[in-house]
């Protein structure tokens, strides 16, 4: 077992902190050794609002993961999200210098730098610059231009950036607890690695990760990452709606949401009541099931409609043959896939992390998709992996990071 390599993915979510310890084998497969979680406090809508409390929760999750995996965690790959994170597609172009007309590896860096020249707002820093396509002298469909002859090299990149301070907050919070942060990854980019297989990416798919504080999404078209983003609405909002609508405290609203909530309206019989038990265990108020479902339905519908609007604006909706993959804690609401199908007019299904092995219960839970995805993403960055173009470009990225710190 000499080529064991421990990779740890850490996601600081709004409802839970999730830390997954994985083992990267020499053949490139990943095995999940342990998953540590802790309820998250001090995080709202995907962003840390209470530094100390969040730090405590992170520590709890890390300790839990260390115990379960029997590994000391020294460094993590950190997943971030938040409404401040934005993304766009941009094309970079360079002319091959005249004395040669063969395209070389160093040209990648140049063309990437050219793509990133589009101004990211000051105060923001780059999270990802993900390669989409190459064009050599205007010809597309080029998979690997190295060695080809050409005068002009262009490349499309999907650029993701976020407010520097907020990203730094997350990093600092983790560092304060102990581990180093090796990379910062935008959550849906990580989830997509384990939720979609290559076939689905080629067909075109949308991954929607409904978390506690945010709904993250990512779109693949023709095998290439086309759009990504974050809506700062999540399961918390559903719970909040229930709490305000039925006038019950948040904790009970949360239980109610998980236990009884459904996104489908019109399906329950009129007069079908849910009994809210009070603290002593005796039956308390009664509420109509339909009311609860209506509240949940409204909010979920809104999330999807907002999402759809974003997708329509980018023009991506018609290309998604593989449909929608729903993941994250929020995807467990009954009826949500149906609602998504109705709103997006394409098939939707619930999903979780694939392409990993290990304790089944660990990776079959959609709440862990992102953290597991971080490991897969990190694995792609590792030098032992067979050199793929993707990883080479990513590696170049990783030391581009250093200037941010």
């Amino acid at each position: 077992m000499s080529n064991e390599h421990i990779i740890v993915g850490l996601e600081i979510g709004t409802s839970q902190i999730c830390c997954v310890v994985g083992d990267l084998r020499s053949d490139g497969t990943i095995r999940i050794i342990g998953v540590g979680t802790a309820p998250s406090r001090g995080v709202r809508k995907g962003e840390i609002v209470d530094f100390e409390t969040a730090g405590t929760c992170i520590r709890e999750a890390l300790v839990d993961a260390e115990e379960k995996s029997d590994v000391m965690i020294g460094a993590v790959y950190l997943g971030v999200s938040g409404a401040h994170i934005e993304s766009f597609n941009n094309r970079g172009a360079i002319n091959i210098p005249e004395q040669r007309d063969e395209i070389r590896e160093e040209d990648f860096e140049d063309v990437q730098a050219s793509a990133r020249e589009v101004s990211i707002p000051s105060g923001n820093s780059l999270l990802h610059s993900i390669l989409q396509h190459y064009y050599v002298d205007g010809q597309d469909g080029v998979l690997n231009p190295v060695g080809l002859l050409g005068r002009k090299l262009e490349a499309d990149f999907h650029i993701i950036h976020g407010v520097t301070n907020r990203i730094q907050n997350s990093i600092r919070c983790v560092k304060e607890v102990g581990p180093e942060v090796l990379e910062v990854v935008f959550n849906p980019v990580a989830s997509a690695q384990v939720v979609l297989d290559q076939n689905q990416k080629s067909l075109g798919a949308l991954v929607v990760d409904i978390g506690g504080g945010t709904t993250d999404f990512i779109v693949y078209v023709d095998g290439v990452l086309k759009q990504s983003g974050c809506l700062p609405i999540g399961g918390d909002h559903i719970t909040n709606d229930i709490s305000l609508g039925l006038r019950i405290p948040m904790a009970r609203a949360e239980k109610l949401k998980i236990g009884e909530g459904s996104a489908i309206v019109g399906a329950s019989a009129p007069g079908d009541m849910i009994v809210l038990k009070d603290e002593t265990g005796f039956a308390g108020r009664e509420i109509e099931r339909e009311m609860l479902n209506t509240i949940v339905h409204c909010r979920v519908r809104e999330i999807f409609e907002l999402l759809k609007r974003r997708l329509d604006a980018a023009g991506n909706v018609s290309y998604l043959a593989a449909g929608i993959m729903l993941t994250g804690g929020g995807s467990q609401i009954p009826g949500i896939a149906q609602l998504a199908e109705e709103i997006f007019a394409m098939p939707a299904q619930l999903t979780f992390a694939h392409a990993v092995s290990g304790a089944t219960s660990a990776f079959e839970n959609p709440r862990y998709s992102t953290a597991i995805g971080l490991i897969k993403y990190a694995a792609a960055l590792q030098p032992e992996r067979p050199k793929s173009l993707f990883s080479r470009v990513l590696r170049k990225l990783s030391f581009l990071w250093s200037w941010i710190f």
Partner: protein
Amino acid sequence: MISLDRNRATAARQDLRIAIVGLGGAGSTVLDRLVLDGLSGASLVAINTDAQALAGSVAAEKIQLGRSLTRGLGAGGDPEIGFLAAKEAVGEIRAVLADAELVILCVGLGGGTGSGGARLVAELAREQGAKVVVVATLPFTFEGRRRAEQAEEALAAVQRDADLTMCFENDGMGDAVAPLAGIQDAFSAADQTISQAVRALAGLARRRGLMHLGFDELATILRFPSEAAPRCYFGFGEADGANRANDALARALKNPMMDKGRLLDGAPNVLVNVAGGSGMTINEVQILMEALNRYVGEETRILFGVAVEPQLGEKMSVTILCALPADPADVRLQPAREIAIRPASTRRAEPEPAIEEPAAPRDFPEPTEETADFRPADDELEHLPVVASAAPVPPPKRTEAKQEQMLLDPVARGRFERSEPTIVDGQDLDIPTFLRRNVKVK
């Protein structure tokens, strides 16, 4: 710079005789609130059927209605009784209002005394030759449909004799308190808003120096084609400190009636008055107006006034008043009408001798010899330069005209109380979706 006013109907003077009449239970409470908040120079008249309430009122003049009909008891929520009771006291009412040039009638509609007596009082005031402004509140939804209907009827009736009618919906004001707070707090919030509005009105009327109150201006705000009185929205904010311009505006907009400024987008006219101590700079005024401009619609006309009131000291305050028609379908922006821009005072300042502009704030335009108020000429207002060093208040996304009447309850953010609101298309997404979409949920 002083521009001459056109269309002068009533000259507003410092010594304008104002009578503030509180009719009925709610009306009297407003009077008490006014005194508490500080109002001087206007005579206060409390008119009620309920003798006990009357006795407890702080007003200088009191008139009891229905001495023989109701004998010191209330009107029992019946406008008919309220009307008859008021008729009994016609002579007294006339006498008390005889001297007034402007009568501000504060009344809570829906009950007996206020709803029944309002139109009579307004009629009498008008007969005396005074201008009549009615500030009315419409009952909370939880008070039931009967009261709502009575309120609407009374409103229609009183409008015939009023020069201006401003209605406030209690629901909008009650939203200032947390949803689970007691009814007391909700009513109290309503009183506070009315009190501020009345003081702003009185202040408008009392402007100093060459400026006049045109009821024209106020009328402009309230002019809508439909017959129902427009619903008024009012915001008031005061702040001091380094960022006072933005803070004051933020507070004014926080008033739930302002709905964080979204309402301003749909209002055809908005009255804004900015006041500050002698240290207030034109830069701050510009910052404030610039920030405010982001909230108002493309077509909205701003009636803008600035006053320097040294007693404000370090504070800066802004008062915003706008109206939307009761029926949202009625908003048709009026064709651009010539309006002379006029300053106002947010609160009743004591009649004072002319205040010299201190030499320090250089960028203040030269004052008139009589007053510290200043007012830009119409064209100058248009050219207020964009303030480069705008304050950090993030502008909300622009919305298309939002006409729904149902005001969002900005406090119902529950868990998201203290986090930055998520605004998309002018809606605060932290507020429950079913609330925003008015989906019936028991």
